[in-house]
């Protein structure tokens, strides 16, 4: 009996290392495929991260350049008030600085998720092409429209004087006066709309665009209405000038 127990102990002692080796081999054989998969995923993420960074950097650079050109456009506006010009310049300038900083942040990102988040931020928080660029262009158009309207207003004053003088000289100015009244009405309408567009568009922010993607289209349409009214006033002015020449 004692001999059987001793033999069993010896056998177990001999088998234990073998079983341990077998278990270790089994573990090794199962862990090898897992490590290979992790290495493959890392490579794919790295490629994706590089692609996002490359394309994102190009898009950020494009926006920075666009905003720099916009600053020139703003500064060349003639009818824009100094305060409005300053407010617009600050907004565009701040966006430019922020996007430049985002560009640096994107370059330093180490994960796909963070890089993708940077790209989303570039679009949703700044809205360079969806809001800022058309906003500045609309304000500039309103500014140019007001410049033309100011000239029309000065001409209207001259025409009023000429018609009054002709009337005092005993000439029939009924038709000319009618044209002048029409010119004044058209010009007033154009001025109101143009000034209103500029005032309303100036404070718009990317969040306003997020709330209403068509917000700028409405102001653009308003400007077209102002343009039509100013054109009608100009046509009246030309007719009055021709009429005054006939009166002599």
């Amino acid at each position, binding site marked *: 009996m004692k001999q059987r127990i001793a033999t069993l102990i010896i056998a177990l002692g001999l088998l234990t290392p073998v079983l341990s080796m077998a278990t270790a081999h089994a573990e090794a054989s199962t862990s090898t495929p897992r490590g290979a998969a992790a290495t493959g995923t890392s490579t794919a993420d790295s490629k994706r991260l590089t*692609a996002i960074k490359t394309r994102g950097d190009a898009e950020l650079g494009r926006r920075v350049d666009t905003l720099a050109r916009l600053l020139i456009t703003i500064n060349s506006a003639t009818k824009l008030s100094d305060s409005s010009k300053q407010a617009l310049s600050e907004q565009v300038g701040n966006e430019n600085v922020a996007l430049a900083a985002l560009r640096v942040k994107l370059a330093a990102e180490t994960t796909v998720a963070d890089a993708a988040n940077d790209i989303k931020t570039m679009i949703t928080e700044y809205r360079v092409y969806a809001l800022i660029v058309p906003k500045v262009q609309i304000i500039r158009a309103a500014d140019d*429209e007001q410049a033309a309207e100011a000239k029309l207003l000065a001409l209207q004053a001259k025409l009023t004087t000429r018609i009054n003088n002709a009337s005092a000289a005993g000439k029939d100015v009924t038709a000319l006066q009618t044209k002048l009244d029409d010119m004044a009405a058209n010009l007033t309408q154009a001025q109101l709309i143009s000034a209103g567009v500029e005032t309303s568009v100036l404070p718009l922010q990317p969040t306003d665009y997020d709330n209403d993607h068509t917000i700028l289209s409405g102001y653009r349409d308003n*400007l077209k209405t102002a343009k039509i009214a100013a054109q009608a006033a100009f046509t009246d002015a030309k007719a009055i000038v021709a009429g005054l020449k006939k009166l002599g």
Partner: protein
Amino acid sequence: MEEAPMPFTPQDPKEPQAEHHPFAPRQQGSSSHQPQPVRSKRSKRQWILISVGIVVLLALLLDGYNFWRQHNTDDNTSNIATTPSNLSQQNTTPQSTGPNATDDASLNQDLKSINSSMDTSSSSQSAADKALNDKSSQIDVPTE
């Protein structure tokens, strides 16, 4: 041997025209008594006088036409003058519309300036339209 020139031979194409021209001087006596070069010189003088007369006449007609046209445009046809003296008087005497002439030029200049500004405004609106329709914001950055 070189042949001597014969200016009044029938081969000369100019001479017969001078002979039959209505303004040519009448020949006195026989042609053998009147030297041909003298007769040709008179004809040239007459032609010069006629040409000068025609030019002066055309100038007067043109001047008169311009005067008529100017006054007809201004609807002052009653003041049309037909004599050169009246013509010069019309041009130098200020009319009742004279003081407005400068104003008219100023108004025309204003119209041109406004027209230019309207063109600028139209260009700006086109740029705004273009910016609104720009699809640049729809970028294709791989985020997945």
